Structure formats: structure tokens, C-alpha cells
């Protein structure tokens, strides 16, 4: 039976708030997980094990001072109270020494929310067998993660939010001896063996075309269908030098030219922050709730930026519940009219992109990104798949991809759970279509 993280969170928040002096206000951001990981290579187990962890990040506002401190938790309540009390005492001493915070922004919202999703996961002792038996004849590699994931936030204005979900994710690839592979992700709350077997069968089918001799693409401009899977790699660029208000104001946003009317996107491009896709909570670490939907780009025009309370204080733009780093959460690109089934036909002759790899800004001011093609990218002639391509480097501006060179957007969209596990299992995700573009710049 899982540890009662919600009770732990509530109890710690109550304890901390009772410890405060009259001139102190705080927010408390809580994260916890019970995770089981199994890593695979060549359809064998490379490493496996479990992680139980919990931590809090607390921001203290006292007079004009602002100080944040994070503390790992043992989940033994009395011990956690003792270390939190000591950390609070240290924070008071440090905060007193700091310069005044000119943009101090203390949360005022007192909303409350509670969301809990239960799951049906693989019994831990069966994980390796369940994953590996159907792929024993394949060169299968990847990571399986499952377990309970919790997020909580509370503040002294009265807000208290709780989100917990039991999820699994299998991020995998299946390889041929020629070094080509089909990539897949199976994620959700209820493991379904039949669905897993269907996905593996799909991967087996995908390997057939990858066994063909590969086609080497020469540098140049190509018509390209970029699948929804590949677009997941682009979503990060809506946050990094992205649509945050502070980033715009400080001259670091790639979309400043859009804001200032020097660049445009296509009216086919719509981008929204939309928590209704149900993969992460709408509250931020300071207990502030974001609207369920926030339109960023509407028919190619910038409608909103992502604004934290701190930025509202500094720049006067109304806040919309963003966390201090002002990243875009639960990104949703609007659907178009192209049926996925017609994608190859509409592509005609060009490249079908299954996945991108290792993208980075090559010129932020011009929203130009470089990256690689990866996994099962295909050369298509007259709507028919001809051969896998040798991986290609590309270098192209988002103002072209989502601007004048955007030909069509698919009707169908796909939900992607964030499978990243830096520090902790992520709770985010996105809903994306595929896109058809022309004159995409391949370079090496």
C-alpha cells in the first residue's frame, strides 16, 4: 500500500504555517513519487529498481525580502518537521541579509483544488516479464517507469491544491542491425497488454521499410511532413526563449519579432496552453491557479504571453497563473483539415519525419533552430514510401515552419505524456497534430 503523501503534505503545510511569525508569508510546493524503473537494451534488463522520494520548495516573504529554500523529506513526519523548522530558521537569517526585492509578489489567491487519478499498473514483480516476453526476438531498448506521482501547493493566503496520479510510461525503440529503428511511447494510467502487443506489432511492421537500402539526401530545401511525434521536440522552444513575458521584455524571446510585428506566423497556426488535456495540474508552485485555457497564438497572431505574478509587478502585464520561469505548460497546437491518411499523398515527393533529435536555437532572434532527423524518417515519391533516409541535419526558422511555409495541419492530434525523469518523473504533456511544410532547409 502506498504512503499517504496527501496527508503528509497537508500536515507539513499546517505545521509550517503554524511556525510562522506574524510578519511572514510563505508558499509551499510539494512533490513526491513512488517509482519503479526498468531500463532495457537488446531486450534484456540493463538496470532496474525503485525510488521513493519527496521534497518541498518553500518561498518566504518577510518585509521586503524574498527567499526560497527546498528540503528533501524522509516522509517520517516528526523528522521532516524538525528539518523544516531548522530550514525556516536559516531562511529567516539569510532573508534578513538580502537586498529588498523590488518586484516582490505575494500570492493572494485562496483557491482550492483536488485531483486524484488511480491507475491499474503492472504488479512490480511482473514488470520485466510483461515487457520483455513479447519482444524477445527483437532488438528492443528503452525505459519503463510506473508508480504514484504527487504534486501539492499551499500558501498563507489560503490556497491549497493537490494532484496525484498513478501512471506508467514505456519509452522504447526497436532496432535493425543496419542501425535504423522504430520509436514508440506507450503511456497512460491503465496498462493494457493487448494495446502493448498492438504497438509492438506496429513497430514490427515499421521495421520492414527500414530494412530497405537508405537514401542519402543532399543538402537543400525539401517538402516535408513532420509527424506529431517529431513536433514534441519543438514544444520545448515555446518555453525556452519562448512566450514568457519576462523573456519578451528582456529581449531574449525568439518571438519578440512576432510581438513587434516584424514577423508573422501562418493563420493555420494556433497554440494554446490547455490543462483540459489532463496530464498536469493547473496550479503553480506558489499555489496560483492558471485558467484552464490560455490562447497564445490565434490564427498566427500573438494573443497572450505567459505571465507570472512577479512579471505583472515588474511590467504591468496581467498575470495568468504562470510559474516564475514562465514556461508553457500543456501545449496544444490547433487542428487543421488534412487527414493523416492523406498525409503522404499531400506530401507528394519529399521527406516524412517520424522524429527529430537534439534541437537547439541556432539564431534565437530569428527563431531559427537546428536539429537532426532520427529513427524512421522516410523518403517519399509521389505519395509512396521509397526508402529510409540517412539522418540529416537541418537548420530552419520557426517563422518559416509555422509561417509562410506551413502548407497544412492534420485533423488528427495525438496526446503525448512527458516521459522525462530529470530529478523526478514529469507530469506534463502536450496535444499535437502533424504538419506539412515546404522548403524545409536540410544542411548536412
Amino acid at each position, binding site marked *: 500500500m502506498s504512503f499517504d503523501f496527501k496527508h503528509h503534505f497537508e500536515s507539513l503545510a499546517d505545521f509550517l504555517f503554524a511556525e510562522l511569525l506574524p510578519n511572514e508569508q510563505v508558499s509551499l510546493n510539494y512533490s513526491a513519487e513512488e517509482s519503479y524503473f526498468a531500463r532495457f537494451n537488446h531486450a534484456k534488463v540493463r538496470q532496474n529498481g525503485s525510488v521513493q522520494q519527496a521534497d518541498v520548495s518553500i518561498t518566504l516573504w518577510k518585509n521586503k525580502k524574498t527567499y526560497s529554500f527546498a528540503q528533501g523529506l524522509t516522509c517520517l513526519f516528526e523528522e521532516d518537521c524538525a528539518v523544516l523548522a531548522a530550514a525556516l530558521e536559516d531562511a529567516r537569517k539569510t532573508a534578513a541579509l538580502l537586498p529588498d526585492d523590488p518586484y516582490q509578489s505575494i500570492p493572494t489567491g485562496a483557491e482550492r483544488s483536488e485531483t486524484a487519478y488511480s491507475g491499474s499498473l503492472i504488479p512490480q514483480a511482473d514488470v520485466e516479464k510483461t515487457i520483455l516476453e513479447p519482444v524477445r526476438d527483437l532488438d528492443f531498448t528503452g525505459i519503463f517507469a510506473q508508480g504514484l506521482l504527487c504534486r501539492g501547493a499551499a500558501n498563507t493566503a489560503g490556497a491549497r491544491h493537490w494532484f496525484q496520479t498513478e501512471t506508467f510510461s514505456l519509452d522504447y525503440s526497436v532496432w535493425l542491425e543496419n542501425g535504423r529503428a522504430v520509436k514508440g511511447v506507450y503511456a497512460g494510467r491503465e496498462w493494457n497488454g493487448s494495446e502493448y502487443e498492438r504497438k509492438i506489432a506496429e513497430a514490427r511492421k515499421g521495421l520492414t521499410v527500414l530494412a530497405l537500402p537508405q537514401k542519402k539526401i543532399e543538402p537543400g530545401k525539401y517538402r516535408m511532413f513532420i509527424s506529431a511525434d517529431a513536433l514534441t521536440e519543438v514544444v520545448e522552444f515555446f518555453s525556452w526563449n519562448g512566450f514568457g513575458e519576462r523573456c519578451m521584455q528582456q*529581449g531574449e524571446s525568439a518571438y519578440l519579432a512576432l510581438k513587434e510585428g516584424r514577423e508573422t506566423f501562418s493563420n493555420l497556426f494556433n497554440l494554446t496552453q490547455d490543462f483540459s488535456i489532463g496530464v498536469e495540474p493547473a496550479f503553480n508552485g506558489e499555489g496560483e491557479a492558471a485558467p484552464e485555457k490560455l490562447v497564445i497564438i490565434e490564427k498566427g497572431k500573438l494573443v497572450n504571453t505567459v505571465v507570472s505574478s512577479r512579471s505583472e509587478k515588474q511590467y504591468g502585464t496581467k498575470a495568468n497563473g504562470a510559474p516564475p520561469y514562465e514556461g508553457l505548460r500543456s501545449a496544444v497546437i490547433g487542428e487543421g483539415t488534412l487527414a493523416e491518411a492523406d498525409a503522404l499523398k499531400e506530401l507528394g515527393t519529399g521527406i516524412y519525419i517520424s522524429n527529430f533529435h537534439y534541437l*537547439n536555437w541556432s539564431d534565437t532572434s530569428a527563431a531559427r533552430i537546428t536539429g537532426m532527423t532520427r529513427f524512421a524518417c522516410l523518403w517519399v515519391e509521389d505519395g509512396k514510401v521509397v526508402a529510409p533516409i540517412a539522418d540529416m541535419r537541418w537548420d530552419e526558422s520557426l517563422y518559416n515552419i509555422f509561417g509562410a511555409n506551413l502548407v497544412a495541419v492534420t485533423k488528427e492530434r495525438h496526446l503525448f505524456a512527458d516521459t522525462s525523469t530529470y530529478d523526478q518523473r514529469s507530469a506534463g504533456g502536450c496535444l499535437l497534430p502533424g504538419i506539412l511544410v515546404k522548403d524545409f532547409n536540410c544542411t548536412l
Partner: protein
Amino acid sequence: MKVNIHRLLKEAADAVPQAEWIGLRRCTNHMSFFSVIDGAFDQAMSSRDEGIMLEVLYNGTFSYAATADVSREGVRRATERAFCAAQSAAPYGIYRFDRSVRPASQVRYTSKRQCLSGFSADEIAQGLIAVTQAARVSDHVIQTEAFYQTDTQEIELVSTNGADIRQIQYLGGAEVRAVARKDDVIQQRSVNGYNASCYQGGRELFNPDTLIVKARKAGEEAVELLTAEPCPTGKRTLVLMPDQMILQIHESVGHALEIDRILGDERNYAGGSFITLQDVGSFRYGSPLMNIVFNPLIAHELASYGADDIGNIAEKEYLIKDGILVRALGSLESQKRSGLRGVANQRACSWNRPPIDRMANINLEAGTSSFDSIISSIENGILMFSNRSWSIDDYRNKFQFGCEYAKLIENGKLTKTVRDPNYRGISRYFWNNLCAVGDESTFEVFGTPNCGKGEPNQTIRVGHASPVCAFSDVEVFGGGK
């Protein structure tokens, strides 16, 4: 919480007597971070955490369980979980390991520090305020930012076969950045690229007086870039300063030589390598001027240590000697699986992640050319400073990197400043075009805490050091849509 790690190990061993071996790695982390923007307070924060990873060997398989609960019951429960994981994985294990890949080393390591006591919060904040003010050299500067971070990580490792290791790393790094704008041109300049100036040491790592001088230069160069011509397009000789060489080494040498990538462990995430197991010992990676070492012994370099996180004692080793690949970056586990010689590099970011093959300090050794002699020998070239963009394929071959600042080299002389400099190439050909390696006077040490890899994902500290280097016939180009 005060813990006796040997007593915890005994609890673990008592809990699972069937285990063939048990290791217990305890890790405590204490981090602080202060930042200032435009002469005003921006952020001050700290974090502390502590936990243990129990690792159990059973039937040829190592499995783990991580917890922050270091009570007697917590350790017993975690050990039992690790044992259950090993039981279920053993029929499917990728290799039948034994205790020989967990040496019984006795190691003590502590970072060398000139000044043991730290600064107070107000001293750091006031220093950073002065630094950002220094970077604001003209009205064209629209943002100045400075930060200082410290991190203390203590790792204890004990095992049932007698390992007893305690290592404390004291780390720190400061950064300054200026953003300038004129009309539609926006340019940024930092000191040595984002977060590249991280080292082991004490209070001496934060010196506001030195940073102020660097901040002023960063501001001036950001403004200078506003009226600079775009970087030209075409092939020419590329000279890289050490603060870009570190990225070049990291991406196109370090990762390519990690044996777990060569064995395919990373194929689903970070990628594989163009290097094969058969290449080690004979492959010509670069020109005869190329000498790359795994060197955990440079005291202030970020990833120096006494032993890795499975207890293998760290020693300096040549990876590439006179351009030939002689050794790869693999831990004892990877060495068993591959049959290759490796290094002590099985490392974890903290107590909640298992150790895997990682770079540590990967350095290019100094050559014999002075900076002036390199420049004067080039008819048509470009000198690039400070990384700002990095991207490379999953086999570590086709790369494209960008820098903050560049100067053209024309007829043996540094001439015009150019903006938005980028270059691209293919690792195996690029390094064979290494045509000059700077002498000791050009050698600089850097480090960054942000190397991502592994499933589950881990971010770890790496150090890199290099002299100035020149490469012939490199494709360079500028920015724009």
C-alpha cells in the same frame, strides 16, 4: 540526520541474507543560488537533501532501491525492494555480473579549497549588483544578469565486501551576461558561455573585483556586436578559444567514447556512437596533434574525484594518443561487457539515480603553438569565442555549434568582429583537420553542471580543459531567418 552508515549496511545485510553483495551509497547535497538582474535583487535560494541508494547483487543482476528514509525500518524495506527487483530481473539480465565490478576500495577525497569559510548572503548580493552595473556600459544594453551558485555534495559508499569511501566535493560558479539591442539586432555576451565557469574550490571562486572587469568586457562586446557584420558563409580555417573547445570536446569526443553508448544502452535516449568496439586501439580519430585524456587529478576541475560511484579508483588515462583512439570511457561494468579497457567513470547525479558511464574531466592536452603563431599562420580564417548553441546527431557525427562572438582572420591578422557565428561538420573528419594546438599559455580549464544522459534521466557535472585549437576547411556561416 546523523547516521552510522556501517550500521545501516548491517541492517541491509540482515534484511536480505540471500543477497550475494550489498552496497549502500549515501549522498547529501546542499546548494545555494543568488542572482541579480539589472542591478536589483532577482532570486536567492538554497536546497538540501539526503538519501541512500541500496544496491543488491543477486543471481548476476544488480538492482537498486532509493529512499530518504534512513531509519532502521526504512533501510530494511529498501533493501527488500532492491532484492525483489533483482529477483524479477535476473532471468532477463543483460550480463551476469559478479562482485569484481564493485571493488573494495578505501578512498577519502575532499576538494581543495583556498578559503574554507563562505560569504554571507549580503556580500554575495552586493557583489552581484556591482557586477551587473559594470556590464551596463551603454544605453544599448537592455539587460544585465549575474549569478553565483555553490554546491556541496558528500558521498559515502560502503559495501559488504569492504568498500569504504567518503568524498566531499565543494563546487562553485559565477556567471555574467549582457543583452544589447539596436533597432532589430539583439546580441548577448557572457564571460565564457552560459554556466561554463564552474569549479571545485571554496570562497575564492567568487571574486567580484575580477567579475566586474569581465562584466564590463561582456557589456562592451555585446554592444560591439550590434554593429558588427554578419558572419560570412564559406569554408575557412576555424580557430576555437578554450571556452568553445570544451563544448567541441564534450559533444564530439566525450560522448562518442562512452562505452555504454557504444554498447547500445543509450540508443533510445541520448543515442549511440559512430565508434565501434573494434575501433578502440586503432581508429584514427584525429590528426597526430590530438591528445585527449580522462584526468580526474586537476584539483580545481569540476569533475575531479578519488573514486567513481561504484568504488573504482580514478586515475589519469589517455583516451586518444597522437590522434589514435587507445581507450574508451567505460566503467568496470562496461569493461566486463565489452572486453575493453576503460576508466573509473560509473557515476550518478545523486542518491536517487543509479550510476552509469559518464564523462568526468575530459581534456585536450596542450601542444606547442603560441596563440600569435596560430593566428599569423592563417590566411583566411575565423576565431570564435564562447558557446551559445550546440546540436549533434545521436551517433555524435554531424554537429552544428554556434558561438557568441567572432573575429575574422585575414592574412595572418585578427580583423573585423562578426556576429552570429556558427559552424558545422562531421566529427571523424573535423578532428582530422586539427592543424594547430596551442601551448600551455593558451590552456584553460572550465566545467559545467548540466550534462544530461541516462534513463531515468540524470544531469551531472563535467569538466573540460583545452588550449586554443585550429581546424582547417570548416564550413562557417551566420544567423538570420
